[in-house]
């Protein structure tokens, strides 16, 4: 038999040992996280520096940087589980041992006041759980708020609104790398009367902005579409890798019905982002070739100072509009940031109504 006087001290030293180990695990994790944060911030800084050089072609580099960022961002699943398992067992053991000490030191008869003696145990138990939670936050950086403000999630780096509102980069130069371009394709090549599918192409999938697009034949508007562009890329189905950014993305904006097919069309697209007050204006000239329309040259991109907007409760409010673009006033009440894309398939002369608006349900695809 053990000495009854000595045994509680043995248990106490065991608890001390366990707690020391737990503390060192905390230090170990924080060292890893510190290195990670440093690494991520270096990449982030490089990425931001890139966005100031608008005259160079950087889409390849940006893509690689975001992929690299993603690689450093998450900890592999298996070690994460091991660390969590270790912490669970240690904390469980410590609490059990403490309880054991209580049992050893308990002397009957039972008195209500002795419950007060249990209070430190409850408080310590809670603190241990908090500690566990804190370390868990550090390990699972992707879905916890603790580090989100210091190092953004990789998918944030493709968000134009994030880049423009939290980091002072030029939206125009970032969008230049995204290379927004328009394509009109016949839905069914065999049918002459088939409607045209309007596709917005992005060579690099920057998202989180609001667009307003009007297509013209000479000065007559043919098609109108507006909405918010937000992507949600699930992990790759085959390799299981997360994909924070993609290339060669096509966004179907809607279908256009036109009777007379002309050789040349023009289109104006406004891009509204959070953190700015003037939209960016893209002007396209599209030429017909077979069963498609494609831009004949690079679009003219400018900041449109004739329109001023602000964001209120996920809604774009046009403060000032001196632009000659039609329909902004009529539809501005519907400029909501809710991830939907609305379009008017047909614009009959002078008559437009909100009831004719359709929602584009087709999902984004890579092509």
């Amino acid at each position, binding site marked *: 038999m053990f000495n009854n006087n000595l045994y509680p001290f043995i248990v106490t030293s065991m608890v001390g040992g366990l707690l020391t180990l737990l503390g060192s695990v905390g230090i170990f994790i924080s060292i890893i996280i510190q290195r990670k944060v440093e690494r991520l911030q270096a990449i982030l800084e490089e990425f931001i520096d890139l966005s100031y050089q608008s005259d160079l072609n950087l*889409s390849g580099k940006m893509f690689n940087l975001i992929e690299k960022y993603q690689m450093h961002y998450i900890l592999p699943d298996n070690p994460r589980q091991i660390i969590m398992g270790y912490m669970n067992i240690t904390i469980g053991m410590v609490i059990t041992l403490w309880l054991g000490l209580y049992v050893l030191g308990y002397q009957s008869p039972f008195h209500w006041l002795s419950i007060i003696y249990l209070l430190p145990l409850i408080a310590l138990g809670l603190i241990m759980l908090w500690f566990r939670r804190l370390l868990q936050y550090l390990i699972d950086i992707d879905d916890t708020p603790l580090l989100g403000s210091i190092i953004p999630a990789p998918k944030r780096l493709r968000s134009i609104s994030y880049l423009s509102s939290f980091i002072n980069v030029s939206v125009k130069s970032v969008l230049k790398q995204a290379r927004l371009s328009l394509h009109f394709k016949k839905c069914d090549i065999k049918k002459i009367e088939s409607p045209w599918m309007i596709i917005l192409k992005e060579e690099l999938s920057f998202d989180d902005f609001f667009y307003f697009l009007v297509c013209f034949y000479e000065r007559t508007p043919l098609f109108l579409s507006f909405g918010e562009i937000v992507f949600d890329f699930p992990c790759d189905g085959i390799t299981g890798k997360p994909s924070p950014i993609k290339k060669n993305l096509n966004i179907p904006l809607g279908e256009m019905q036109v009777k007379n097919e002309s050789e040349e069309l023009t289109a104006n697209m406004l891009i509204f982002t959070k953190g700015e007050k003037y939209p960016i204006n893209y002007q396209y000239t599209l030429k017909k070739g077979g069963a498609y329309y494609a831009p004949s040259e690079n679009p003219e991109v400018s900041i449109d100072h004739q329109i001023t907007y602000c964001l209120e409760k996920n809604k774009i409010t046009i403060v000032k509009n001196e632009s000659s673009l039609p329909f902004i006033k009529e539809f501005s009440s519907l400029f909501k940031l809710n991830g939907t894309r609305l379009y008017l398939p047909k614009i009959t002369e002078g008559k437009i109504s909100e009831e004719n608006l359709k929602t584009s349900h087709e999902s984004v695809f890579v092509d």
Partner: protein
Amino acid sequence: MISLIDFASTIRELFSQPFCSPLEGNYLDLAQVTDLNKIDLEKKIHILPEPNPIAEATFLIIQSMKECHLTQTKIGVNELLKAYLNVINKDHEKECSEVFSDYLFEIYLYSLQKNYPYTDLLWNYLSNCFHVVSQYLLESGYVRGCEIFLQQIAAMGKTAAQKGLHTSSIQHFLHTLELRAGELGYSDLAAAAKNHRFNLEIF
């Protein structure tokens, strides 16, 4: 320095000579021979190479680049591409495309030199030319030629992207070409164009 007109006429004169592939003729090229024992070395060693007007024209163009005469270079490239479109026919579609696109690549490689100031401008000019040339090749049914030409463009585009030059027009024209090729029923060419487009900026 020679005037633009003289430069253009010299180049045009060179290109007016009939096209012959550098592989033709009796000149002994060691790189092309597999077994020297089978060849009568004594007899062949004295044969001079066939005249190669394209190589000479390319040299002239590169000379103009050394002098940083951009207009001359542009005229030269333009004449080279026009000569290509003039010469190409169904019989030697492949050789012709290979030869011309190789020389074009040489010119392009020279333009990447650090001391050449007009890399961007020449690249933009080249990108604009590529579009028209390959569209013509496609519409005239030179599918094999177009494929070879595209391959070389894609190689140039890839290097350009690595150097930070804009490839949006190349990417965009590859897409247009893909659509058009699909419409005309050349699915292989369309697939090749798509593949080039997807690989353009992977490095």
